[in-house]
Each structure stands twice: as C-alpha cells, then as structure tokens.
C-alpha cells in the first residue's frame, strides 16, 4: 500500500511526522509533509492510517500501490 499527500492542502501541522516518523517527515523550508517511504510495509499500516486520520487538513490519502500489491 501507498500513502500520498496533497501538498496544496498540507499546511505543515506535522501530526503525520509525530505519529509515524518512519514514513513521514517535514521539509526545512515550508515545514510541509515529505513522504520518506510512500510504499510502506504492512507492519506500519495501522500507524500510517492513524496519521491519515489525524491530519487536520485532510491532506493524506491511502492509495493502491503502483504494483497493485495492496
């Protein structure tokens, strides 16, 4: 599975980074979301989903990965 961010919505709350730093970070210029590991391993799924639900801007979304393996 894959997580994607809509940077037009992201306002840099960094809740994603707080909840799952293995997958999310924030940049040094605007403080917006950087997805370090878009195709995350299954053991992180629960925490990635938690990060998605905690984004106050609704900027994160889980998508089927390019390989279709989801």
């Amino acid at each position, binding site marked *: 599975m894959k997580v994607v961010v809509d940077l037009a919505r992201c306002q*840099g709350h960094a809740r994603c980074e707080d909840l799952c730093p293995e997958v999310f970070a924030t940049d*040094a210029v605007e*403080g917006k979301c950087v997805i370090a590991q878009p195709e995350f391993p299954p053991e992180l799924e629960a925490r990635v989903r938690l990060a998605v639900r905690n984004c106050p801007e609704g900027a994160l979304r889980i998508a089927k990965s390019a390989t279709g393996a989801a």
Partner: protein
Amino acid sequence: MTLHFQPPAPDHVPPERMVDFDFFAVPPGMADPTEIWHDLVRQGVPSIFYTPRNGGHWVLMDYADIVEAYRDHTVFSTYQTPVPPIEPFPVVQPQGVDPPEHNVFRRLLAPLFTPIAVRGMVDELQRRAAGLIDRFAARGQCDFIADFAARYPTGTFLHLFGLPEERLDEFLALASTFFRSTAPAERADNITQIYAVLDALFREKQASPGTDIASTIVLARDANGQPHDWTDILNCGFLLFVAGLDTVTNTLAYIWRYLATTPDARRYFRDRLDDPDAFLRGIEELMRINAVSSLFRRVTHDCEFRGVQLRRNDRVVLPNTIANRDQRVFENPQAIDLDRAVNVHVTFGVGPHRCIGSHLAKREVMVSMQEWLRRIPDFELDPAQPPGAAFGGSVMGFDSLWLRWPPR
C-alpha cells in the same frame, strides 16, 4: 453598573439568530472562562448566531463551519478584523493579509519555525525552563503565572530576537499592558512604545546583523531583490510579539491548573518522561481541551453562508474551544483522554494561517512539563491563596495560579 450603548441589530439578521453574548464578560466566580462558550451550547443557541455586543459580530459554533471559515479567505478575510473594531488597525504580517500576498511574509518566517528548526532550539528551551524552575523549586510555593508562565515565552522571544536577557522586565511590562490594559490612552501609548522598541531593534540588526530572527526579517529581500517595506517589517515583529506570548502563558496556566488538581495526569506524564511519542500524544489532548484563543474574520462581500445572509464587513468570531469539543468530530468530547487516538483539534487554526509557531509552542509546553516534573513531581493548588481572576476575550485565561509542594 456601566451602561453600554449597543447598536441595533443590522437588518439582515433574523431575530431567531440574535443572541445577547459578550465574549469578554466572565461572570464573577467562574474559574474557567471557556465555560462562557460552552454555556451557549447548553442554552441551545443556533449554530450560526449574531450578537450585538462588541460592535456586533457573528459566531460560528460548528467544527465544520469554523474550519471552512479558516480555509476560505475569499469570504472570510483576515484583513482588518479586530472585535470590537479598531480602524485602521496595523496590517500585521503575515496574519492580517490574505493569500496570495500572505505568502510573502509566511515564506519568510516558515523556515524559522519548522519542526526541524524547533528541534535545534530544544537545548536552549530546556536551559531556560530549568533556570526559571530552579529559582523557586526549593521554596515549595510560587505564583505559576508570574514566576514561570509569563517569563518563559517572553524570555524565549528575547532569545529568538537576539535581545539581551537584561531586557526581560521591560518586555514583561510591555506585554502585560498590551494584553491586560483596558484604558484606551494607556493602550495607545503602549502600542507606540512597542513599535518604538521594534524600530530601534530592527535598525540595530540592520547595522550589525546576527543569526537571530529579527536579523533574518530585516535582511530578507522581496521578489525584486529589494528590502521589505519598513512598515511591514515592524508589523511582522509586532505580530511575533503578540502571537507567541499570551497564548503560551495562558495555555501553560490551564495545563498546570489541571495537573495540580489531577494526580493521575501527573503520574501519566511522569511515567512517560522518557517516551516522547506518548508524552506528545498527551500534550496534543491538553492542547485540544485548553484552546485559549478565538480568531476573527471579516466578510469580504454580501453572500449566503449555510443559508445565512452575511453582509460585507460583518465580523465573525471563530471559537476554537467550541470546535474542539464538537461531538460530531470528537468521541466523548468533554472528557480529557490523554491517549485519544484521533485528535484533529484546531487550537492552532487550520488553512493558510495555521499557527507558524505551533511547533515551538508545543515544544515550550513539553519542555516545561519535563523540567518541572523532574524537579517538582507532585504539587497542588495553594489553599491559602485566592484563585486567579478569569478573563475572556480573544485569548482567555486567569491572572494568577498559586501552587504549593513540599519544600526541599
């Protein structure tokens, strides 16, 4: 009793949406000023209502509407918004400017307050918190607000702006008059003084720049390679001064009052001193429940919002404490659940003006709690002292918080 002249309701407001509500007025004996807002919910006021007080303004009461107002600057502008109205009001940078112009100062400040930048401030924040607490820890008693919560963010401001520590008392006095005075002449004089101090500061940094934030602002160049307008520079300094002091002070005050009266919460955080993830989750919940600020917007043009007729220049108040306890968004919203899993609170706003200082503010709260609980693991309200007087307005709080603990 003072008699206030209240303007009549504007004729576009239907009578069923009129509510007589003054968000500055806290009834005597009420310890928690956010209750003036939650009382409105208990009274069953309409989710969008108009009050003739404070010059007349709308209030939005639903999380979804408050979030929409934060996001849609084409209807809800941040330009010239004070309630009650003060015109002209300084066009503070970047908060008082709508996108896309907003982006100029937003981009200038953003790198200085990212999570990465704030991680670089942690040692300094720890040193400052520890230094303040060590001054009274052995005494077994303090007024948390005068001795810590007011000094800490103000000292941090001095540090970030490259100002010497000796000026702390001067800045504390300026901030205290700014936030608490209601005398018009004193207020006008105070704002003149703050601008004079900022003017001298920025000139000094222009002549001999350092690595501080004031230097960064004064040295920045616009898209054409020119320095920013001097008025904008002053208005940006002014916003940083007013945005990051009283908000932090009152948030800390609320949190410490809760900790003083809740042994389980003290234990929760003491047990997690070395587990930053869990510590942070608990703080996020304390930020949700202790949303001290309400924000203002101004309607840009006559239009309908959720079936309600708004008129150009109508003022709108967005109470974060109400959004954060909306039962359609938060499970069991009145309960403090330090392990709350989903917490999309709007204490720092959302949308383009999302608080640029939110990571710094949360770090200030976190570091204060860590340093405090390591030195003063248990404490309570001092029964020998009167409770602080509560105040409403755009930043709510109370003016003293006496605590005691076993002296060492």
